[in-house]
């Protein structure tokens, strides 16, 4: 990989981020309503005859720069963004957008990234074993049943798990990230409590995505199985486990890594439904609240996070490919 390629790839990353951020800025501002009217109307809806309502709206619009022409607002936004300033939340003023995102991000990453990695590992392993010729037939049948979940959207799996384990059996919490009454028993109890609360939302993602990764890995393994290098390994008398892991899996896993990178990018955006269903305090909930109230800076901030994580994951993958697969070389003959 040449430096020239890396620089071009990094520049492309910034262009993608800029285009998406620009599109998002104009889209959210063109939607009907605005955060200030929303807040004042909510107040009026609760019985307030606001004699100074229009003046109040104008004053707040001025304070948040919403009275300026849209293009001017955009230029201000980009200038601030270039300095790493995402601004203030309108509906939570004077809280900064970075604070709201910072509060929520660890929960989203902790839950979704873990669940995604776990489903990738398990899915890839099971997918490989399903295609491997010496896997017993009954085991293949058993593994196939996991693939059923690949056909069900993860939020439906989540509803099913909620119904069984939280509503009917009542052995796991229905939502939240921690017991609101707190835990006694020290740090271990707190860890256990957090794990319990993450179990159902995590499991819904793991079940849905394991089947998905299994399918991909199985296909790749089937195409790898007849390869010469496997025949050679067998001819050399290498142990089967080693052939499976080091020769077959290693060769077949490259597209899986790409898929994982793409899906890791979606981790932030893909959390919305699960977080809403389980009242999980992550970025998805922040985004839903912000959209509901037209909190422009927060919407833009969360979307920026999504774009950066998705495009960033692909960038990192592009740069790491030559290290994973020596056959790949950028910028060289």
């Amino acid at each position, binding site marked *: 990989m040449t430096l020239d390629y890396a620089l071009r790839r990094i520049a492309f990353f910034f262009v993608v981020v800029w285009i998406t951020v620009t599109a998002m800025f104009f889209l959210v501002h063109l939607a009907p*309503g605005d955060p200030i009217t929303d*807040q004042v109307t909510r107040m009026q809806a*609760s019985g307030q*005859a606001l*004699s100074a309502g229009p003046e109040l709206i104008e004053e707040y619009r001025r304070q948040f720069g919403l009275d300026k022409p849209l293009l001017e607002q955009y230029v201000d936004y980009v200038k601030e963004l270039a300095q790493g300033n995402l601004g203030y939340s309108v509906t939570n003023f004077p809280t900064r957008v970075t604070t709201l995102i910072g509060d929520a991000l660890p929960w989203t990453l*902790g839950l979704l990234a873990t669940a995604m990695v776990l489903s990738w590992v398990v899915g890839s*392993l099971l997918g490989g074993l399903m295609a491997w010729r010496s896997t017993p037939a009954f085991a293949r049948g058993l593994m196939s049943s996991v693939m059923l979940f690949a056909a069900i959207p993860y939020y439906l799996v989540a509803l099913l798990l909620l*119904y069984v384990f939280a509503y009917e059996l009542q052995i796991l919490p229905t*939502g939240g990230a921690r017991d609101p009454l707190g835990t006694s028993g020290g740090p271990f109890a707190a860890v256990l409590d957090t794990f319990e609360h993450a179990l159902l939302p995590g499991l819904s993602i793991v079940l849905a995505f394991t089947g998905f990764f299994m399918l991909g890995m199985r296909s790749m393994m089937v195409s790898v199985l007849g390869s010469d290098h496997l025949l050679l390994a067998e001819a050399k008398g290498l142990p089967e486990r080693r052939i499976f892991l080091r020769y077959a899996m290693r060769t077949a896993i490259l597209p899986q890594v790409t898929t994982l990178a793409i899906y890791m990018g979606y981790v932030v955006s893909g959390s919305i439904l699960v977080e809403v269903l389980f009242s999980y305090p992550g970025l998805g909930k922040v985004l839903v609240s912000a959209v509901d109230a037209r909190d422009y800076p927060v919407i833009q901030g969360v979307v920026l996070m999504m774009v950066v994580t998705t495009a960033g994951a692909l960038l990192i993958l592009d740069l790491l490919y030559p290290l994973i697969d020596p056959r790949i070389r950028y910028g060289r003959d």
Partner: protein
Amino acid sequence: MIGAAVLLIVLVVVIVSVAGGGGDDDTSTTRAASGGGTATSSDSGREAGRAETLVLGQYRAPTGKIGNPYVQASDALVSDGLHELVYEALFYVNYQTGRTEPWLATGYEYSDDNRTVTLRLRDDVRWADGTPFSSRDVVYTMEQILKARAPFRAANIQGAVRSIRALSPTEVQIDLRAPNPRFVDSELSSYVYTANFIPLPEHVFRGEDFETFAFYDLARGLPMGTGPYRLTEVTASAATLQRDDDWWAARAGFSELPAPRRVVYTSPGPEDSAVAGLESSQLDYAGQSVPSVAGFIAARERNPKLVNWDGDLGWLDPCPFALTINTTRRPWDDAELRWALNASLDKEQFSRLFNTPGEPTAARTTFPEYPQLSALIDENEDLLATYPTLDHDLERAAQIFESKGYRRENGVWTKDGEPLSLALNLFSPAALGPVWGDAAQLLNQQLREAGIAVDLQPGDFNTVAATRADGRFDAQSWFECGSVTDPWATLNRYTHAPGNDNAGRWRNAEYDRLVAQMGELTPGDPRIGELYAQAMEIWLRELPVIPLNQRPTPIVMNQTYWENWPTADNGYTQPAPFGMNFHQVITRLQPAGDGQ
């Protein structure tokens, strides 16, 4: 590979748990330092158990951590217990008794011309840090409101008050710009959901920018109020308040200490989760996440300790649902056609959507039917006999349409080749719950049966609000908040006074005159009844807004741990835990034997 994955998971869980989703203040968990003020809880060192804890499922994250009620981001309905349990109002309006009950104040007097109010304050109130509360705090807060560029919920106060001065540590005099005998009720009291005037501690605010000071630093004991609880911890999914055992009202013998030592506001999740929380008694109250009577009944089957306000029927929210008609858009600028529209709607059927299988709660008028207002409507029953708002009468509607030159073609009333259409802007299910999906279908079906071509335009709250502000609708679903004891506030909604939520742009000079005249009378004045009858005669004849449904809101209260919740049979005050009046409920709750 699997071992590495398990290790990764354990590591992430440990990190997230220990960090609590972040760090301090700038992140998700904020905890008060012990002894944040001088008046600490006598047994604060002991953690309250479940039986001593009240768990309210109405927390809505993310919270911006705003304690200053005059900052525009402070939303009384984003509940972390501040306006219910930490702050206190000068007065609380009790919808059940119709009385304005003094709390931080002992009373008030109006001048003869209703332009001056003299407030008398209690002399034994203390802030949570032990500093005495006095007229200095009231005057400071009011003066800051008057100076502010945009004091949010106190904008009306800014417009109404000319000046304020302290007469003594326990007396203040407020000069109003115009006669306003309802100023104390509507502006200084907990009225609808919250109070517009919440006194703030002058000694804390001194030197801060009133308009931007967040007033939120748990380590410094902020937000600080005079109430019986202190906010001690805020996490991403819950807010915890601890009882202040040195609360001034208990020390003064004015009130008992509330029985719950700890109050936790937590997120109940979607309705199914809230129902499960009530069934298992993890929740004592599920907030507005149980929007259906069916949800309440399902939960009660598993937990007989659950009660609602009135049997299966929820408490009537102060803001009934109605259809605002844009009276400036043809052909709905014609009052007779508005009556035809009214006759086309089966409101009883509509109301059953909201409280199946309870009694129908169709709205006769746009007043919430609390005792005082119901009595007034009943006293003027003859008006409703002349103007039967509840009658679903398609023949009558057809007569009106025909009299206006409409002919029915292919099921739709048509005039000059143009079908009779109605742009109906409604709350979407995303805005106010799934019932609004059914409501849209039902209204569409009823109006089409009546021969009106409906153009349904559902929207989230923000879209509906924007459409309302611009008047881009023929009819729009909305909440008619206003009166709770005295009829003036609801009647005033439909006058042309500036700032009114008169989105239908209806104008009637005689009506405006009558309501203005009523506005100058003290609530309870016998002349109000007569003016009400005259104004309502005009309003009903013109029907600028079509009443739809009283708004029974399930207030599901769990008696497993706590008893003496307000119910229709024990209606000492309104029950809504999201309202500031919950302060008056928590001081009356008693521990239940079973839950101990």
